[in-house]
């Protein structure tokens, strides 16, 4: 699948500011994201990285400014925007009382996913094939993160917004996700993510955005 053949989708952020508990986390933030670009948000703990990602997803309202997708405010055409978005936050969004297989089946049914997905193939790729019948609650933190990130293999959405995707992953898992990043960007996808790890992509250039008042 190639996203670049469509009219280039672009995320545009204008004069965004965020206030939480009467403290201004960031203000007058402007940037755009074009097809094939990767953006890493940097900043110290508590500087508003997660808040920024939640605003970009439409889960939170900014104190000022707006976010547009293809020129349309994301809150005006919410379903259209959600169709183009995959978000994985701090919480994995997986149910502990469902098996890995059942969790994937649910992602498949509820998201904008590719046709003809074989959940066994996906579990194999993320290294959880032997655990397909195990309840997700019995997995380790790293395995649960892998299961959550399996969504990236199933989605058709061009825009990925990921909050600390590498948390709890072992080096092999990180490599795997970096591989998905590369593949997604080469197909014209876009990624915005936060991490404290050093991420190396072979084919794509990562752009950095530092937020917060502490610039050191």
């Amino acid at each position, binding site marked *: 699948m190639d996203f670049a053949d469509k009219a280039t989708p672009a995320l545009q952020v204008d004069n965004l500011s965020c206030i939480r508990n009467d403290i201004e986390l960031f203000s007058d933030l402007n940037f755009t994201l074009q097809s094939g670009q990767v953006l890493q948000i940097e900043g110290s703990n508590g500087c508003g990285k997660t808040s920024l990602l939640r605003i970009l*997803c439409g*889960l939170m309202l900014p104190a000022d400014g707006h976010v547009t997708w293809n020129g349309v405010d994301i809150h005006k055409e919410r*379903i259209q925007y959600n169709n183009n978005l995959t*978000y994985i936050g701090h919480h994995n969004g997986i*149910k502990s009382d469902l098996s890995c297989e059942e969790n994937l089946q649910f992602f498949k049914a509820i998201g904008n996913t590719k046709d003809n997905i074989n959940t066994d193939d996906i579990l194999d790729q993320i290294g959880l094939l032997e655990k397909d019948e195990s309840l997700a609650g019995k997995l380790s933190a790293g395995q649960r993160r892998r299961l959550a990130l399996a969504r990236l293999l199933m989605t058709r959405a061009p825009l990925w917004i990921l909050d600390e995707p590498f948390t709890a992953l072992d080096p092999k898992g990180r490599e795997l996700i970096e591989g998905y990043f590369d593949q997604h960007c080469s197909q014209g996808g876009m990624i915005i993510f936060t991490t404290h790890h050093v991420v190396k992509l072979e084919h794509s250039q990562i752009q950095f955005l530092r937020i917060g008042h502490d610039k050191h």
Partner: protein
Amino acid sequence: MTNTNFHAFKTLVRRDFTLAMRNRSEWTNPLFFFFLACSLFPLGIGPEHNILERIAPGIIWVTALLAAMLSLESVFRSDFEDGSLEQLVLSPYPFTVLVYAKILVHWLVTGIPLILLSPLLGLILHMPADGMILLMLTLLLGTPVLSLIGSIGVALTVGLKRGGMLLSLLILPLYIPVLIFGAGAVDVGLGGLDPSGHFLLMGAILILAFTLAPLATAAAIRVSI
């Protein structure tokens, strides 16, 4: 509802139902409370026919209402805590459709068992057979309203750490009309009068709640997460 929306609705109903079956204490505890609280009344008041028969509809309705409140937290709490609620809000399906699915499952696992258990409690409280049929009918119309209106309150308080008290304050006043007409219909019926007026009003409340509550719930969830 288009086909794909209906598919998402069905999938969520199936998932929530599976989860409820695997985590039984969430819905059996309120049911147990309903049974225990009702069955204590004959012990406390004494086995006098007339008094128990007179107050039975009120007792059963009040305890059903409290049992429904006890089970409300489970509608969105676990989805909120594990991040599934964010994923549902960001899914490419109308969120209101998904809210309908969650409310339906709540009613199926808490409302239906209440209705089925009520004749047994009617028996304990010396209610005549006619009264039991009326009671089941009022619960059939009333328990969906409890789930629908309750979901608004729980959606507003799901982001709070200790929202239980606030939830009761928000929801109980809205439950009162259902309580009055529900218990009233059984009373009127047992008194030999026609309870259809009460039933029509309960039907109207159900239609109002069915059409508006999921919209309010969806909006409240967006504020809470």
